[in-house]
């Protein structure tokens, strides 16, 4: 689900700016290794989000003294994430209601 990946990426960036590999690690960690991103699909998503103005990127030096591209949420990105989250909650709640309906 494309929209889902975008949402996960936005969530991962909510706390602090991060590079691409960090994002995959973060998502994997949070999902208790259930969600293993096809790492190749991450970069198209990042470029897309940047084009849409939801995140911005800058080159920084990492702790091990290597150059890496860090992505950070923009204000619009935060707003978008909040909206998508609310929508997601509504939908999953609804789906759960259906699935849990007592027969």
């Amino acid at each position: 689900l494309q929209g889902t990946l975008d949402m996960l990426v936005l969530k991962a960036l909510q706390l602090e700016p991060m590079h691409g590999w960090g994002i995959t690690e973060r998502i994997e960690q949070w999902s208790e290794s259930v969600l293993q991103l096809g790492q190749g699909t991450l970069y198209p998503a990042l470029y897309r989000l940047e084009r849409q103005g939801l995140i911005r990127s800058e080159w920084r030096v990492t702790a091990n003294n290597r150059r890496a591209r860090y992505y950070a949420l923009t204000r619009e990105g935060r707003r978008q994430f909040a909206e998508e989250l609310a929508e997601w909650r509504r939908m999953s709640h609804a789906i759960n209601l259906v699935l849990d309906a007592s027969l």
Partner: protein
Amino acid sequence: MSVMKQTLRRFGSLLRRNTVERGLNEEIRFHIDQQTEKNIRAGMNPVEARRQAFVRFGGVEHMKELTRDEFRPAFFEDFVRDLRYGARLLLRAPGFALVAVITLGLGIGAATAVFSVVNRVLLSPLPYPDPDQIVRLFQIDSNGRRSGNVSEPNFEDWKNGVRAFRSMAEMSAGPEPVSFGTETEMINGADVSRDFFDVMGVRPATGRTFNADELRVGSAPAVIISDRLWRTRLGGAPITTLRLGVNNSVAQVVGVMPAGFDYPSGSDFWFPRELSPPQTSRTAHNWWVVARLADGVPLEGAVAELSTVSKALKRRYGDATWMSDATAIRLREHLTATARPTLLLLFAAALLLLLIACLNVSNLQLARASTRRRELAVRLAVGARRGRLARQLLAEAVVLTLAATLVGLAIAVGGVRTLVALQPANLPRIEHVDVDLIALLFAMVVALVTAVALGLTAALRASKPDVREALSEGTRSMAGGKGSERVRQALVLGQVALTIVLLAGAGLLARSFINVMAIDPGFETVHALVVDTQWTFSNDPLVRQRRKAVQEEVLRRLSAVPGVERVGLTSAHPLGTGWFSNGQFIEMTRADELQTPADLQKLGPEVKSRAGNAGFRIVSDGYFAAMGIRVVRGRVCEETDGPDAPHVAVISESLAETKWPNQEAIGRYIQFGNMDGDLRGFRVVGIVSDVREISPESVPGPLFYGCYKQRMASRFYVVVRTDGSTAVTGAVRQIIHDADPDLPLQIRTIEDAFDRALAGRRFSLTLIGAFSVVALILATLGIYGLISYLVAERTREIGIRLALGAESADVLRLVVGRGILLAVAGIAVGLVAALALTRLLEGMLFGVTTADPVVVGTVMLLTLVAVLIASYLPARRALRVAPIVAMRSESVLPAPPGIGRGYFLFLTLARCALGLVERAIGTPRIGLEPGRAGHRQHVTMRAVLRNAVFRRLAPAARMEPFGGRRWVIGAGVQCVSPEPTRRVLRPAPPT
């Protein structure tokens, strides 16, 4: 973020593509490194760790491609690349490119040029405020004939009686002498009544309109001039300093109309009508009437009210007015009425041409599409999506169309210039025509859609079948897609059909033109000069007497000029530009029956049976000879018919026949006083032949000629018949100038007038003719292309046939027969279409019906010949194929020399024609000869021809087929019957 902004960002990335690309690479490297480190930490050896990192990441290049799609403007980039590729492809096939670009360019150019004219002349509004509110008023007589010439009392009554018009004005336009200080020139101008400028809704750009004072007789006269006259003739001087001699008075210029104000067409000055005496006769139809509709009144309402008022006038005045009804027509419609049929015809023809060009290019595209099947299949095989292929083909089409549009633009610019230069007199406003960019765009889109969509779909369809099959399909294929071949045949057939329509139209116009040229107009058109002198009407008897003296002096001196054969005077000459006055006469018992105008009223009701209608001309004794009008009976005016002798008249044959059928017309008395106010009757002394006055194709009307020494006319033209020497013009000018130095002159030849009368016809004929020739060339090219393609595709098959012993002529027949079949089908369809469509031409035809057998036959023959040539050329190439070469490869080599080409052409064509005849009516038998087995057998034309071929081809021995060999030629399908040909070798007959 808006889509716009995102798109901008994409384009922005183009500028820093390398940076973005480097960044992406570094990011991926970093990602893999991190993953590798993580794997190492998890205990893998470095090599395995790196490998696993790549596995985890997935396809790097694929992912890069996906990422690039996110940041670059993929569609645009691809399109630009496709355009470049398309241009390269075109350059690689320069022959195709040239033909396609020129063909489409011709179509686009012609359509654009003609539409530019149509748009300017027919569609664009007149340059006046609310132009659709301006109407011309027409009176309708009891026979339902509409006339734009209205009498003044009727105009006054309309003006006072019809509420539907806000304002109404009358005017009278034409060339009048205008003097600028010492020089006098003929300038087009109009006498206009007070509300004229209100009706038009235009005020002078400089100065003002006439004030109340200037509209009163006896005040200082004023005149308003055109911007054109002001700038070119008067140098744009301040208008307060300008005075013009108009209407026998010196008038102050008080206003200059804005540039572009051009009504009545060509007018350069406007003079108050109120300064000349009012006209009280309801049958003096001397005025044009224009009006502006009142706000909110629809045209229909105004027409209804006008009609009511006019009918009331008729009831009140009876025979005193000829008007029995009236109507109004929008000025724009009236101005374009004569031009509309010609222009619409041209427009239709140009569209047909565009269509033919598009069909042609579609055909070329289709041919290329089938040769490109392999290329497209390869692209599909390596993973191109079908949509992407479509886009690429579209880009190629765009390149083609853009190039064609450039050519078309050049042709349109030239075309518009040519149209303006040809400038048929009946096209208003044509001098302002420019190439219409909307039209160019429209033609381009039509070309793009039709020419290209077909090629595109065909290419896509060709790419659809099994990719593997298309790839493996070698050069040895027997035939391409049958489907696309059928489409191509349909296209060629359509082209031939459309061409037939155009050719038929051109042919009909040409025959009409020839018919008009062949008409005897009733006068001699060559070697005659007409001098338009401005001996205008005057009521002053002294002026008239002096003028008569001048005229006689001029006639006398002119006849003495060497080179001048006859000289005459007339009040109106055939094909002239002036008034052709027309009126009602009454037959009387004696010449002096009426003494006063009141007597006219006293005539009883039985006068109607004695009345007649005729054109009224005043001529000198030499006129008939000078004009070449034949005297049928009696005599014409003579020297002795002076002012004091009894008045005599000459009438035309048709008047004599209609008014006095089977009776003697000579000797009758005619009262025609209502034309010139002179109540003395005429005695008819002679009958002359009919003259087609208005145009060569008009029906000659009844004419009545009075003698110039006895009656006065408002205007005189001098007709000079010369022996053809051109020096006469100067002498004529000098003599008239000597006699009356103030007289401005216009000298024309009757030949010119005749040419002008035919200009409209010549204009449409030239253009339609040009269009149809181009169409024929395009159709020929189309057939040539199709047949060449078929031949190229079947080279190997033809080689096999030749090797098996097929006669060369049979191969030719196979190929040419295909072309002929197409042509015959196209001609059949085209003729049906032509019969339906040329009906639209009926109004422009003369002496020929739309189903004219000569035209139809010529058109058919012309097309057939073109098709034969178009299919013979590729057929000849097929024949030169050496069988072994053809079977081994696809290349086409020329046959060994030695066979006469002309002879072959003749034989081939003859056999083709014969084949068609045989198909239609069975095998014609031309005689009996002893057969091989000793019995007599039928000799067919075919056998004769075949033997003729053999005698050329087979020097020592020959192979002759017998048995059940036959070609099956059906709709687009040809093949050899399954039964193989059996052959025997026989010794050659002794030569």
